[in-house]
Structures are given as structure tokens and as C-alpha cells.
């Protein structure tokens, strides 16, 4: 167990959905994924790349070996299906991604795919469920390879890929996403036409298990988290503050239009607003991760005439993002007037926040209770494919598994016991949903 976290009373093997065979299968799978994708430092499975395809094929083969149906959609997402007694009913779906960042960890994505497979196999052993159950292995979740907004596989499913996505370039090969998708056998025709490959009413609900990428579960000493919402974000990659360059000794304060001081004031104002908004209970994080004065012009003895910087803010709440955006524009105007500078916020890239379904979360909470798994109700700071599902109106939720060293690095530290606790909770919830006639409200 990580840290000095108290151990929890895991349900006895006899009552657990995930029996010893399934647990061994999961351990095997993690090992195989690690072996095939180890790059000397960490795990590398490129978005729409060969390693990703091979990892997905392992899941395909396993599904077939266990008598499940498999198929690839036009975007080359893999769907593994356990047919229900009434195949016409909307399906109970789960899944995650199998690509990784360069030199990433073995659990980010894979934990969700493997736990979904376990859930299908466990349900199958109990006899055919009422509703069909589907595992979807989504392609291209990580933004590391192409930059910009990612979730290519899930967005393609719902006809949401844009020309600018398709023409974005791979950071190593320099080829476009379209090129690499074609190499993986993607049928680009419906995708370019932004035609959905599946409609939201195909789904009864969607659940994704994922390792936690923050420190909350470690701090709260809980093995499992249930996610209430996924933060959206607004990104300005390049904000420019334009003042007036001047001699640092000769020009008095009131005649200066110092771009760096103006930017600093803006950032401190933003920080102050942020503090207040947290006091009011709003969900918000703000970051300015890049700040640059112009190398060709800047000097110790020169009042800076220009500075560029990045600005990113995230919230679970669309309204908060909107109001905060207005606030920033306002501050830019006021500080600009006062200091005789101009702020140009540049391009604004928006990723919508997503609310998880209260009903699916409460289903998971009940499953955790019966499985004897302590869990924490929490938001997700990082983005996930599940946001795309939720914003399609599909009742969705996520299960987080405690993980010690963050993600997107080779030191991800998920304890297998924690993984099985999370997988058990998800399997129970999925199995419950698959045998329930009632509809779920998003």
C-alpha cells in the first residue's frame, strides 16, 4: 500500500466479481504492455502509431478468445462487445485509451482498458446480461504527439474532428495526423465529412477508469475516487503586451509604458481574482507557463516594450470560464489604459468542461459500498475522453485509482490492490446497469 494508508477491507474473493483468474489475466496484460512498449526509460505508444495498434490488437485477440465480438470503427477505435439478451437496448459502455506520452507510464489509459475487459469477462461468467456491454479502446487521447486539443478517437466517433486537427503535425515525423490515421487504416471519408460513427442514443451509460493524475487520493488515503466533473479549459498560447521601449535611466516612471510591469500587474490581478473566486467556492486553476521578452531587443538597461506570455485557466464550470474570460479582458483594458500599453490575447482555444452524471456516480457509489471499497468524490483536473461522451449527453462517470507519482512519466505508481478495488467497483456498476431496464438521466 502506498504511504501509510490504512488498508481497506477488500471484499472476500468469493463475493468479488473479479476472481483470481481475472486478476491474473490483468497482471499478465500489464506486463505484456510494458514489455512491448518499453523504450529504455518509460512506455511509448504513439497516437495513431504502430505500438498503439499492436496493443489494441492484444485486446482484440483476448476478447475473441473469450467468445466476445470485436470490430473496428472507421476511426480504428476497437469495440469489444458482449451481446445482451435484448440487443436493441442502448449499451452499457466503458473503455479508455492505449496511446501514451513519450516515455510515459504503463497505467495511464491501459488501466481503463484492462478493467473494462475484466468487467465484460466477469459479467459473461455470470450469464448473459439484459443489455449489451461494450469496451471501446479509444485511439489518440494524448496531446503530446500533435499538440493542441486531442481526444482524436472519441471526437472522431461523434463527428467532431476538424480540418485543423487533421492537418496538425506529428512532433517527430512532421507528417499530418491525417497521414498517420491513414497509415493505421482509418477510413477518412466519414471523418472528414464530420459524420458521427455512432449516435449518443447507442449508449445507456459510459464509465472510464483511469489512474488519478493528482495527489488527492494519496492525501485522503482512499484507493478509489469517483469523478463528478472534468475541468474544461481556455488557452491563450500567446498573449502579447505592447508598450514602448525606452532607456532605463533617462525616462521617468510616469512616462514609461513598461510591458513587463503591465503584464506583471495583470498576472497579479488575475491571481487576486482567483483567490477571491476560490473563497466563493468556484472551481478554478490558472497558469501562465511561458513568459518571454523579445531576445533581439531585450536588455538590462532597456525598459521592455513588448512581452509575450501564455495564459491557461481551467474550471468544471462553463460559466466560471466565461466570466473569468470577461474579467481578464476587463483587466487588460483597465491596466492598458492606466499604463499606456495594449494587450492582445491572441488565439483562444476552448475545451468544454463536462459534468458527470449524478446517477452514474451514485450507481458507482453503491457499488463501492457493497464491495467495501472506500472512495472519495472528486473533480478531475486533467482532461479525459469521458468529457467528450458526457458532452454528447451520454450519462457518464469516471473511476479514479490512487497513484503515487502523477502520470505522463515512467514513475506512475499504482498498487495492483488499488487497481482491483477500482476495477471491482466499475465491474459491479456496469453489471448492475446492464441488468437494469430503467433509463439513466444524464
Amino acid at each position: 500500500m502506498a504511504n501509510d494508508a490504512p488498508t481497506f477491507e477488500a471484499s472476500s474473493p468469493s463475493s468479488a466479481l473479479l476472481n483470481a483468474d481475472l486478476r491474473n489475466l490483468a497482471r499478465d496484460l500489464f506486463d505484456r504492455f510494458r514489455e512491448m512498449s518499453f523504450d529504455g526509460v518509460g512506455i511509448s505508444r504513439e497516437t495513431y502509431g504502430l505500438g498503439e495498434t499492436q496493443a489494441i490488437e492484444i485486446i482484440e485477440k483476448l476478447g475473441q478468445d473469450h467468445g466476445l465480438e470485436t470490430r473496428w470503427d472507421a476511426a480504428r477505435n476497437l469495440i469489444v462487445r458482449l451481446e445482451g439478451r435484448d440487443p436493441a437496448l442502448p449499451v452499457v459502455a466503458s473503455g479508455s485509451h492505449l496511446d501514451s506520452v513519450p516515455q510515459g507510464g504503463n497505467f495511464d489509459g491501459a488501466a481503463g482498458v484492462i478493467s473494462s475487459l475484466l468487467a465484460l469477462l466477469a459479467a459473461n461468467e455470470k450469464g448473459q446480461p439484459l443489455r449489451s456491454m461494450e469496451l471501446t479502446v479509444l485511439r489518440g487521447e494524448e496531446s503530446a504527439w500533435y499538440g493542441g486539443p486531442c481526444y482524436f478517437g472519441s471526437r472522431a466517433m461523434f463527428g467532431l474532428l476538424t480540418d485543423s486537427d487533421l492537418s496538425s503535425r506529428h512532433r517527430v515525423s512532421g507528417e499530418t495526423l491525417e497521414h498517420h490515421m491513414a497509415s493505421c487504416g482509418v477510413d477518412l471519408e466519414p471523418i472528414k465529412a464530420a459524420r458521427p460513427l455512432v449516435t449518443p442514443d447507442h449508449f445507456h451509460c459510459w464509465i472510464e477508469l483511469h489512474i488519478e493524475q493528482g495527489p488527492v487520493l494519496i492525501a485522503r488515503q482512499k484507493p478509489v475516487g469517483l469523478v463528478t466533473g472534468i475541468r474544461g479549459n481556455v488557452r491563450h498560447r500567446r498573449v502579447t503586451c505592447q508598450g514602448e521601449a525606452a532607456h532605463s535611466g533617462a525616462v521617468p516612471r510616469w512616462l514609461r509604458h513598461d510591458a513587463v510591469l503591465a503584464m506583471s500587474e495583470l498576472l497579479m490581478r488575475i491571481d487576486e481574482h482567483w483567490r477571491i473566486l476560490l473563497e466563493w467556492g468556484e472551481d478554478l486553476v490558472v497558469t501562465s507557463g511561458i513568459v518571454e521578452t523579445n531576445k533581439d531587443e531585450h536588455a538590462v538597461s532597456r525598459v521592455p516594450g513588448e512581452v509575450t506570455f501564455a495564459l491557461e485557466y481551467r474550471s468544471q464550470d462553463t460559466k466560471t470560464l466565461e466570466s473569468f474570460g470577461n474579467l481578464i479582458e476587463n483587466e487588460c483594458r483597465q491596466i492598458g489604459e492606466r499604463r499606456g500599453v495594449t494587450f492582445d490575447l491572441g488565439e483562444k482555444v476552448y475545451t468544454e468542461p463536462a459534468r458527470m452524471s449524478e446517477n452514474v456516480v451514485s450507481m458507482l457509489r453503491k457499488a463501492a459500498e457493497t464491495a467495501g471499497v472506500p472512495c472519495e468524490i472528486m473533480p478531475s483536473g486533467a482532461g479525459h475522453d469521458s468529457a467528450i461522451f458526457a458532452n454528447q449527453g451520454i450519462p457518464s462517470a469516471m473511476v479514479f485509482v490512487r497513484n503515487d507519482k502523477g502520470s505522463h512519466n515512467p514513475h506512475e505508481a499504482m498498487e495492483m490492490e488499488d487497481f482491483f478495488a477500482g476495477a471491482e467497483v466499475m465491474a459491479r456498476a456496469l453489471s448492475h446497469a446492464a441488468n437494469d431496464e430503467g433509463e439513466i438521466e444524464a
Partner: protein
Amino acid sequence: MSEKTSVAREAAELLLQEKVVYTRTGGDPFFFSSGWASPVFIDIKRLISRPESRARLLDLALERIEADVGRTSFDQIAGCELAGVPFASMVADRLSVPLVVALKQAKGFGRFAQCEGDFESGARTLLIDDVTTDGRTKTTFKRALERAEADVVGIFVLFAYNIFPGHAETIALTTLGDVIAVAENIGALDETARSALEAYTEDAATWSRKHGGIGKT
């Protein structure tokens, strides 16, 4: 001398007696935050530490407010962050009316983002600050209150330079002109200081420009 003038002169005399009128005729002038250069600087907020003169100043301020605004024409007092707040508090307390604080900058969003306190929308509000130079900051506070849906019926300051262009409409208890007039009567300023102040009040923009400050708003 009118009632109004005598009140203004009495306040000016108080400022001189309390030595919060500073002059500089040689070397670097004073610079206000707005960029104006000035040979005179009134640090009226020092008076909050002197209970007797503070009380006297307050008596005069209330007299002036009664005469120029009228007690029945406002529902509440607003103080400007920061130096306006103690004076506004004392006025509100003497009159037993509600008090709010108008902030320099908004904190967060919503109606009260730039105000502390609470009031009904449409509350008639008298805005109070210690000093005004060119009135620009008062506009900020007025906007802050209006954003909170207050009806700002007047702006009252204890001291106004009253010499800069672009001056917002305010009621001042006393002005630089009053200070100069009283100083002359009681011999409070030496000749150099007095003539510098006179030159300044005649054409503040030119004086400021000549001494390295801004020349217009």
C-alpha cells in the same frame, strides 16, 4: 464672506495648523500617482490620528454636506478605498446611515465585486474621499458603485486641488485656493512658497510640464 467660504477657510486653517500642507519650492517637486508634478502636497489622512482636529474637520464636513447635498437626498455613505474609508465611516456614524466601501479594483465578478457592504439596488449614495487631484480615480469608484446598482448622487472630498483639467464634478470642503488665501492671512507660508503656489494654481498644466510631470490628462 459667505457661509460656504467661511467653512472652507476654517478647514484650510485647520490643515495649516496641523501642518499637513507640505510645499517644495526647490529640488524635485511632488508627483501624484496620476503623473502630475506639484509644489504642494496635502496629507490630510494624517488627521485620523488626531482626535480633536479630526472631530473639528468632521463638524465642518457635516455642515457642508448638509448645505450642499442635504441629509434627505442620500440613503448611504460610500468611502473610497483606502484613505476615504475612515472619513466616510465617521460621517456615516455621525449621521447613523449605512456605509459601504468602494474598491479600487474588482475582486471576482458579480454585482458587489468592487464594493464591500450591502445595499438595495438604486440606493442613493454619497461618495466620500479624502483628496482629489484630477478626479480620475473618483470616476473609478463611481463606476464601481454604479456596477453595484447604486445611484451616486454626489461626490464629496475633504480637499480638492481644483486646478487640473478634466476635473470631475465634486463638492470639496476646502481647496488649494482656500489654503493659499488663509496662508496669506495668517502668514503661514514664506514668500517663495506662496508665489510658487500662486503660479501653480494659475496654470497647473504648464507648471507640471516644466517640472517634469504630465501636462494633460
